[in-house]
């Protein structure tokens, strides 16, 4: 008996439907020309009306408050406020880019290509997942900034009492729960990369201490939220019959990302004031800082 391992064939380009074709000149070239002209004129107009910003000359001794990255990185700067810096700034974006690139290797069906949304439930999945990402991200930011507890108390007169104080924000898990002393000094031996890290203390055999409550706040809860919530959302959509194919699952994941990414960028850009405090956009002020004085951190 001969058994051959046959690799799944790689999809080939579609055959052309020549009777359905139009000429690139003029049908496409003119559209491109018009689009290019519209953008050129719009940008010229914009450039006439609004000048590119130029502040005072760079000065390492004068820190503006708040100091912000370019707007398209403010989503990461916003994440940094809520969790471990390495995770927010590098690990999560890297993992997400890999997941993004891997979409077509997960969703390999050729059906539904070349048309908007493409599956039966695609539009409702997109809207629902986008809303989950949008509202969920807002809720998490408000919670972690202590604003939810503030609204509950000051607007509705509801306070959880002392027993629920650990729910005020994520940091309260570390400060408000009665952690035993040993949990803050769990000893373990990780690989010590002294060669690569210039400031790693001790030799390769030195034991390291893990602050478990700190780990829970900085890494545990954020990982649980970021992995758990999308999984719960997609699982729920699958159970109620919205998500039926891999395409649907990817649609839900991507739309949720767009919602959350939008909120992170928006909050980082328009809602973070001095000391990275959460403020309304119209309350946002930038202080130029005083020479020789560090800006207030969060």
């Amino acid at each position: 008996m001969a058994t051959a391992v046959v690799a799944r064939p790689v999809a080939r380009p579609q055959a052309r439907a020549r009777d359905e074709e139009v000429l690139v000149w003029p049908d496409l070239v003119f559209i491109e020309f018009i689009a290019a002209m519209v953008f050129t004129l719009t940008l010229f107009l914009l450039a006439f009306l609004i000048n590119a910003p130029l502040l005072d000359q760079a000065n390492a001794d004068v820190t503006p408050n708040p100091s912000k990255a370019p707007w398209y990185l403010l989503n990461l700067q916003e994440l940094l406020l809520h969790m471990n810096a390495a995770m927010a700034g590098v690990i999560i974006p890297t993992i997400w880019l890999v997941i993004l690139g891997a979409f077509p290797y997960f969703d390999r069906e050729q059906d539904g290509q070349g048309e908007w949304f493409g599956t039966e439930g695609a539009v409702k999945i997109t809207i629902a997942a986008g809303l989950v990402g949008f509202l969920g991200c807002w809720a998490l930011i408000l919670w972690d900034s202590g604003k939810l507890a503030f609204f509950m108390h000051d607007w509705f007169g509801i306070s959880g009492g002392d027993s629920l104080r650990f729910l005020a924000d994520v940091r309260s898990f570390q400060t408000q729960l009665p952690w035993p002393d040993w949990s803050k000094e769990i000893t373990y031996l990780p690989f010590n990369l002294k060669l690569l890290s210039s400031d790693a203390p001790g030799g390769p055999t030195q034991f390291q201490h893990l602050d478990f409550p700190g780990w829970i706040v900085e890494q545990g809860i954020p990982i649980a939220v970021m992995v758990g919530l999308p999984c719960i959302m997609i699982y729920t959509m699958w159970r109620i019959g919205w998500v039926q194919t891999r395409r649907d699952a990817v649609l839900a994941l991507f739309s949720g990302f767009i919602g959350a990414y939008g909120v992170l960028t928006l909050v980082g850009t328009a809602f973070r004031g001095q000391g990275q405090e959460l403020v309304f956009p119209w309350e946002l002020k930038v202080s130029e800082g005083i020479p020789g004085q560090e800006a207030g951190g969060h």
Partner: protein
Amino acid sequence: MAVEQPTRPTIADKIYDKMFHNYLWKSIFRTGYPNTPRNQMLVVATNVFLHLHPTRIHRTHVKITHTYCLGGLSFFMFLGLTITGILLMFYYVPSVDRAYLDIQNIQTNVQFGQLMRNMHRWMAHAMVILVFMHMMRVFYTGAYKPPREFNWVVGVILLVLTFLLSFTGYLLPWDQLAFWAITVGTNIAGSAPVLGPKSRFWLLGGLQVGPDALIRFYTLHVIGLPLLAAIFMAVHFWRIRRDGGLARPL
């Protein structure tokens, strides 16, 4: 019934003949003016720039709502940024002593300098937005599906390169906005486990944003990253053609 006789050439026909059937025109364009289907196909097939396109495409692909021209406009922004960028390079020296003064000089003493700088800045923002929207368009039309898997990956790389191009350009005016944005941005990169401090040092050429960082960002911005982006764009466009043009329903 009278047989239709050829009419005498009008004055317009004579002008047309002089313009498009002369030795000089034909030495440049080979084909006549693209007013017949044959010439229209030839002009696309024989012109190096138009040859990015096939001569004919499926009728669904000329619908604006199918692509919103987002990919093409991203490329157009890249071209516009190259042109305005070259003009700015005539006046800008990437040294800590001169950078800020050069920008002020461009804005006040150079004719249309302020306009060029504004165009460059707004086009850069537009490119980031357009590239991101292009990614969303490709995703929601299922255009990443087989056989276009790899071109989606190339697109993700181009998205990252677009961010990096914009980020490296952000430092060049050497004002407070630039300095502190790059300080915050490179601190984010520096927080990476294991390789973070090293990569931050490599990026800045030191422990903080200074003269070495400026020259590195400038070099990456004007030659390193554009070259890399151009290579990936070439692959991206080539693969669109090889994978059967734009995606359309099976």
